Structure formats: C-alpha cells, structure tokens
C-alpha cells in the first residue's frame, strides 16, 4: 500500500476541527478558556489541512484511501486530488480568519447562551466542508453534505430568539434538504448506471444517453440550490444576512462554492456534454450575475447587499464553467483552460473578498449597532483601518485592477472573446454576447459598491450610533488582513496562482490534446507591469501631494453646498437616493415597493418614506405555492393529533406492513401447500 501522508494529514485536520468545540461543552458558560482552546484546535487543524492541500497543488501525487464503513459493502473512499485541494485552500483560510475574528466578535463572556453551540457547529462545518471535498464515493459525499447542511443550519439560527432568523433558518433548511433529495436521486441513478457508488468516470455507451441528461438535471438542481444560482437562490439573502458575520463569511465564501465543486466533480464523471449544456450554463451564469447585482442595488441592509453580490459572483463562476464545457464539446483545449481557470480562480477570489467584506461589515455592525446603510455614514474617520480593508474588498469585488477580481474576470473575458475570434458560426457563436453583460454586471457592481462604501464610510454621520463608532479590536483587524493580503497578492502577481490552476485544469480536462499553459494564453507580464506602474505612480503622486501640503497646509472648511454655511447630515445623499436612478431603470425586474410620503396638508406632520425590494422568487412564486400546498394537504393533518397511543399504533402498523412485504409468501405456499 502506498503511503498517504497528505491525505492522513487532511483526515487529522478534519478530526481536529470537528472536535474543536467539544471540550468547551464541559466547561462553564462564560469560560474564555474554552473559546481559546477551540480556536487553537481549529487553527492547528486548518494549518495541517492547508499544508496538505498546498502540497498537492504544488505537485504531490494524488492520494486515495478506503476507510471501513458502517456496512460491509459500504466502505468510505477518500481522495485528495488537485480539484479537492484547490477547494480546501479557501475552506481552511476562511476557517482560520473566521475563528480568529470570532474570538472577539462573538466573545463567550458576551454570548453565554449560544457561544458554545456556535463554536461546536463552526468547527463541525469546517470539517464537513473538507469532508465533502475529500469524499470519493456517493455515500461519504452525502454524509458530509448532510453534516454540512445541518451545521450551517444551526449556525444560521444562532440567534434563534429573533423571528426573522427563525424564518431564514427554516427556509434554508427546506432549501438545503430539497437539494439533498436531488443529490440522493443523483447518486442512486449514478449507482444504477455505473454499478458503483465510487466516483469513477462513466464510460459513454449508447444506452446511457438519457440517464446522462437526467443526471445533469439532477446535479443542476441539487448543486444549483446550494450554489444559489437564479432562480434557486431564494434562501440565500436572508440566511447570509441574519447569521453572525463570521458565519456569513464562511457561508458565502466557501459553502456556496460546494455547489460549484459538486458540478465540477459531476462533470468529471459524466461523458462529454453536448454544446447546449455549456450554452445553458453560460446563460444561467449571465442571468445570475445581472440579477444578483441589480437586486444588490436595491438593498438597504449592508449584509443583504453583500449576500446578493454572492449571487452575482456565483453567476460569474458559472459563466466560466459554461465556457469550459463549451470547450469540451468543441474540442478546444484553450477554451476549457480559460473557462475553468476563470471559474476556479474566481472561486478563490470570491471567497477572499466576500469574506473580507462580511467581516468588515461585521465590524461596522459591532461598532455602530445597525445594518441599515442609511443610518451609517462617516465611519471612515473613527474606523480608518476597517474602512481601508473594506475599500480593498470593494475594489476587488468590482473586478477592477490591480486587485484579484480582475485576474479571474480577465480569464473569463479572454475565453469568451476567444470563442468569438476562433469560432466559425456554430451554436456557440452567441456565447460572446455574455461579455457585454458581464461588463454591465461589473459596472453595476461599481455603482453598488460606491453606494455601499460611500454611504457607510464616507460623508457625515447619519445617526448617533454612527457617531459613536470605534475601531475594531486588533484580532478582528488581523483576521481581515489575513484575507486582504491574498487579494492584493493575487491581484498584483496573478502569475503566481497559475501553476496551481494549471494543475487542476490538467487533471480535470479529458481531451485528446493537453491544454496549453495559462501563462501562454493570457500574457501576465504586461498586466503585472501595468499593476506595478499603477500602484507605484499613485503612491508617488500622493507622496508629492503630501509633502506639498506639509509646506502649504490646505485650508479646512465646510463642504460646498451652494452657499450653505452649516450643511447637515440629512442633506447628504443617501444610499437609497444614490441607487434610485438604477432601481428605476430596472424597475421591471425589481418591483420595488415604496410607501410614499406625499404632502397634502398645508402644515404636514412628520412624514415617513419607506421602500423595499421583495425577494421575487420567494414572495411571488414559492410563498403562494407553499400556501396552496398546505391547503391541499390539510386533510392529512387529521393523522397528527397528539395522542401517543395512536402514534404507537402507526408504528405498529408500519412495522407489520413492512414485515408482510418481506414475508416469503411464495416459499410458504410452495413448501406447505405444495403449489
């Protein structure tokens, strides 16, 4: 048996992180020691796991291992290959950052009622995420998947005394299990077709054509629900907004990506898809990207805004995936490499900057006590460091150079344009039309983050609580810095990430010709030169300006408001006003509801103005559907009336029925009656 050192290390990491919250259960409700111990276990475990993942990405051999399962013929298979390792890196990085952040953000002494449960589930979730990625058979995968869904549910409902949290939690639970159901069907069918639960590439034969289509649709449903692609995203905004911020960071940063991981893994198993599948994925991705950003523009809640941006970014990731699939269909290794690399790098990038933004938003909430964007403002002065870190995240998520978002979007753009330049008129000729829409999503993201950053951190304070805000403690800042540094590093030196991507692409692709190296497809040298020139000259000019203002101190005065001497905070533009033009432009999609304050009297009393953007799929489709389901199934309620005797009778009846079904009746007849 070959030694499996990196895989063993990963298993050790899973055990350490999964058990991190357990010692705390035995210690006191206000014990800070338990929190310290749990954090230490998570951090040590994550470092071990990350080490293994990096080793495999750097070129260590693929390792597999079989563990004994609960039943003789059900053993658990684990496999650490480049794709798994690639997804493990953000899991552990965000795990460490979130844990570090949580030590102050969710201090045990301040949250005696739920701090221990939160930590238990946090460690459990990190372990489950790693388990999903390492699983190499349907059974192990579903076990880890379910553990992941449940621990995420308990994390979302940490503050279960609040009604909106309960609501968000239930919707999440239902969505997660609807997805799991689809996955059960998926793996059962896969087992029926290929005869094994293990993940092995299917051999394409004529008879499996129909099964393949069903497998694809089931995967799209099950994994799409997890990833939150439109229209399966309905559970996402509320769940991510109402969880504690370091939980939101983990949910948005890596949990969503498990849907993408699942799709990538399934496409490794299925035979090469027809080009329509790739086009469908590009279409879904484009719709998600635009839908997500447009809805983000309409939000007034900082965390909901960030949650909608996750839908946008998942859309961008799915576009990359679609491009890779078109490449597989068209036998174009360059398209596969560009699409897949864009998809994967955006998985990393989104994990980094979205977690950074959620943590920064958490610091804002921690310090100013509200999530309402229009009640914040001017936090750039008291919270200068948090503001700078949020700015890094904001520029990165808009895909602007010189930060990391640009590198991954560039890969997807180049791929799309290449389809355009290389392709004769085929089905995929329409794929490049996704590029202008991606550009539009990018420009709308700029609008949305100028709105968020400008209203929260710039301008005057809009409320008392914003005026009293203070800088986040250093451990929280350190956690954010841990995420901001890779954003800057990947942005300035994207070529550094290419070898890891090349390795995953080479492992994923199943074409006759090997894919070209990414550094040959996208010229990173001039881009890195431009990045360096940009950063260098901006710093140089700012230094010149600074030394100049030291000699000639600029006069300080009030903002020019057309001659007003004392402009007040109420005169500053709010986030709602800022987005109003675009919200109007996309009114057909957003259906924003506003309670208007039209003045009719001569001396009007105090007026209130209120707008909100409903979650379309939830409010317009699912909620009515749910109500009619409940009405249709109402007669069945008679079965559930609270009498234990009757319940016992149900159990007995069920048991008898099952026994009767199992009863070897033909044998009985043959043996005793001689039939």
């Amino acid at each position: 048996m070959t030694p499996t050192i990196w895989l063993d290390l990963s298993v050790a990491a899973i055990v350490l992180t999964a058990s991190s919250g357990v010692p705390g259960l035995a210690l006191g409700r206000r014990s800070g020691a338990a929190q310290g111990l749990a954090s230490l276990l998570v951090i040590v475990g994550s470092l071990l796991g990350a080490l293994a993942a990096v080793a495999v990405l750097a070129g260590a051999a693929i390792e597999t291992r079989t563990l004994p399962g609960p039943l003789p013929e059900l053993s658990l298979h684990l496999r650490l290959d480049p794709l798994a390792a690639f997804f493990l890196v953000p899991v552990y990085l965000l795990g460490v950052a979130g844990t570090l952040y949580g030590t102050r953000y969710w201090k045990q002494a301040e949250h005696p009622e739920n701090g221990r449960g939160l930590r238990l589930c946090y460690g459990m979730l990190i372990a489950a995420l790693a388990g999903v990625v390492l699983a190499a058979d349907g059974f192990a995968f579903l076990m880890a998947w379910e553990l992941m869904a449940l621990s995420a549910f308990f994390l979302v409902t940490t503050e279960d005394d609040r009604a909106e949290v309960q609501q968000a939690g239930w919707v999440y639970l239902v969505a997660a299990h609807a997805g799991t159901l689809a996955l059960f069907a998926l793996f059962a069918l896969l087992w029926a077709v290929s005869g094994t639960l293990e993940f092995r590439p299917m051999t394409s034969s004529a008879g499996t054509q129909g099964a393949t289509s069903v497998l694809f649709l089931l995967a799209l449903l099950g994994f799409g629900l997890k990833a939150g692609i439109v229209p399966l995203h309905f559970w996402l905004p509320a769940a991510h907004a109402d969880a504690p911020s370091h939980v939101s960071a983990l949910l948005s940063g890596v949990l969503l990506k498990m849907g993408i991981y699942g799709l990538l893994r399934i496409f490794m198993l299925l035979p090469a898809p027809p080009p329509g599948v790739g086009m469908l994925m590009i279409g879904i991705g484009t719709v998600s990207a635009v839908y997500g950003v447009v809805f983000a523009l309409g939000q007034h809640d900082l965390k909901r805004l960030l949650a909608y941006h996750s839908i946008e970014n998942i859309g961008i990731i799915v576009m990359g995936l679609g491009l890779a699939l078109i490449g597989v269909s068209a036998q174009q290794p360059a398209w596969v490499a560009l699409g897949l690399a864009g998809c994967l790098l955006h998985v990393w990038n989104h994990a980094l900057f979205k977690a950074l933004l959620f943590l920064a938003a958490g610091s804002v909430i921690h310090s100013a006590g509200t999530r309402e964007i229009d009640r914040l403002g001017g936090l750039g002065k008291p919270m200068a460091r948090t503001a700078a870190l949020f700015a890094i995240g904001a520029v990165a998520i808009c895909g602007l150079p010189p930060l990391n978002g640009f590198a991954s979007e560039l890969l997807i753009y180049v791929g799309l344009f290449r389809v355009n330049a290389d392709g004769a008129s085929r089905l995929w000729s329409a794929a490049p039309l996704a590029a202008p829409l991606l550009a539009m999503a990018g420009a709308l993201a700029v609008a949305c983050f100028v709105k968020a950053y400008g209203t929260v951190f710039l301008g005057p304070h809009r409320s008392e609580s914003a005026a009293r805000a203070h800088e986040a403690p250093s451990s929280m800042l350190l956690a954010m810095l841990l995420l901001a540094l890779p954003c800057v590093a990947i942005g300035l030196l994207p070529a550094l990430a290419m070898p890891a991507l090349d390795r995953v692409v080479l492992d994923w692709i199943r074409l006759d010709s090997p894919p070209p190296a990414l550094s040959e497809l996208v010229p990173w040298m001039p881009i890195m030169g431009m990045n360096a020139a940009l950063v260098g000259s901006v710093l140089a000019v700012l230094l010149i300006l600074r030394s100049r203002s030291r000699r000639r101190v600029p006069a300080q005065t009030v903002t020019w408001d057309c001659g007003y001497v004392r402009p007040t905070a109420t005169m500053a533009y709010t986030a709602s006003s800022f987005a109003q033009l675009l919200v109007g432009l996309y009114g057909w999609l957003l259906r924003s509801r506003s309670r208007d304050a039209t003045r009719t009297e001569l001396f009007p009393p105090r007026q209130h103005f209120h707008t909100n953007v409903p979650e379309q799929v939830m409010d317009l489709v699912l909620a009515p559907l749910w109500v009619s389901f409940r009405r249709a199934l109402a007669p069945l309620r008679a079965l559930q009336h609270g009498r234990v005797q009757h319940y016992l009778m149900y159990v007995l009846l069920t048991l008898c029925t099952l026994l009767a079904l199992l009863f070897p009746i033909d044998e009985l007849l043959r043996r005793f009656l001689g039939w």
Partner: protein
Amino acid sequence: MIDIATTLIHITVMLVMPPLLIGVINKTKAWSAGRQGPPLLQLYYDLLRLFRKDMVLSRTTTWVFRAGPVISVTAVLLAGLLAPFGAFDAPLAFDGDLVLFAYLMGLARFFTASAALDTGSAFEGMGAAREVSFASLAEVALFMAFVVLVRLSGSLSLTPMLHAPMTGAFHGLPAAALLLVGVALFVVLLAENARIPIDDPNTHLELTMIHEVMVLDHSGPLFGLVLYGAAVKLLLFSALLLHFALPFTFGEPLLDWALFAVGLLAVAVAVGVVESAMARLSLRHVPSLLIAASVLCAFGFFFTLA
C-alpha cells in the same frame, strides 16, 4: 519590436495634446454662437495656475477625497498606453488588453464617484449616482463594440483589432457593421466624457450636472488633475473613434502622425458642433440613447454572423 520613437511620440501626444482638444471644442462652440470665446490654449493656462494654487479641503473628507483624482488620472494615462494612435501600434499590446483598458476606466470611475461621496454634499452625490448609472449602460455599448471588432479581426488586442478597418478588407455587411460600431463609439465618447447631449459641461445649475458636479469641492492641484484627466480621456476615446472615421495610412510616419493630429482636432470640432446644434437630453432619456448605441452594435454583431 517596440519602436522607441513611436512610443515617445505616443506618450508625448497623450500628455501634451488633451487640453488643446477642449480648447478646440470651446472655440467651435463660441464660433457657432458668434462669440469670440476663450483662447485655444485656455486650459493649459488654467492647469498651470491650478497646480500653483493652494488647496481647500472640506472637514468631512478623508484620504479617499485626495486619492480620487490621483488614481483617476493615473488609471486613464495607463489606459492610454493600450490605445493605438492612428496607424501606429500602441506602446503595449497583448491579448485581453481591451478588458484592461475598459476596467482601468472603471477604476477611475470608482474613485471619482467615491471622492464625490466623501464630501457628503447632496449635489456631488447626485453627480456620482448619475455617472455610475449611465456608465453601466455605456459599458455595455463599449463591450458590444469590442465583440464585433474581435469577431471581424480575429484578434483579442486593441492594436490589431482597431487597425482592422485600415486593411480595407471589409466590404458589404462587415463594413456596415464597422460603420454601426463607429456610430456607437461616438455615443460612448459623448457619454464617457460628459458632453452634450448626455451632460452639459457649461451648465451653471448643479442639479442638472453629472461630471462637473462631482468635483465641486476639489480645488487647486487636485482640481487640476481632475480637469487634465477628463481631457486625456476625451483624447483616448477620440483616438478609438478615429480608427473608424479615418481608417487610412500614408505609410509615412510623419504624415500619419499629422493625419492623426488633424483627426483628433476634427473629432473635437465634431463634438463642438454637436454641442452647438443640440440641447442636452433630459436625464430620463439618456438611458435610451445609450441602449440604442448597444443595439447598433448588436446589429453589427449579427451582420458579422451572416
């Protein structure tokens, strides 16, 4: 392969010529209104004066306010290294540089708008909101134009892509596609540079401005950078447009540079004529114009498929 002389001339033209274009636009407008107008070189004098002046800063502002103009100018100038001028190659050309070009403009927009919000003024907030809103539509038109050009030229870099019309290899539908793209790019130029009919740089009512109102609080050298950056951006978009308006080369560097310079001035005159002949659109009609530009390019794309 890099031609040092061309690069030097490229950078010199990009650095020195932009304020002249603004002067030409203003002179054209004055001439058509029967006025004398400011001197052609007025913006040069203004810039020199502004860079010597002191600054006044609002107490509300943070570092973003000061970084805004600096980042914008730098981003725009770097984008200028990617745009080919006339018949010459750009100093830097590589696959995907078109995305970098557009996204550097996006970076400039992000910080200009953020700097505007940093002052806490309602007027500047309005300007910033309009700028980012309309830019999201102009971006679609620009990328639609790129899609058509990539398809026609089979290349992913601005230099060969924009030199494609010069080869004279396109007739019939592809040539019509190029024409449509040219018209759309003119609209994008007007929108991105805040000219009539999208925005009126000369208005004196803050409520109706877009670009000018975002920079109300900038003063001294910072304001100088803002004005200069805007002029450079105008030059770059004019240079893009010229590849469609004047797709010719003499094969002689000196004549080609002269042709390019004359072309730039002609674009400035054209902008001036538009400004003299038209009123600005009301704000709610601006999106229609920008969507129309995208639709033109979409037609162009379908022409290339035929």
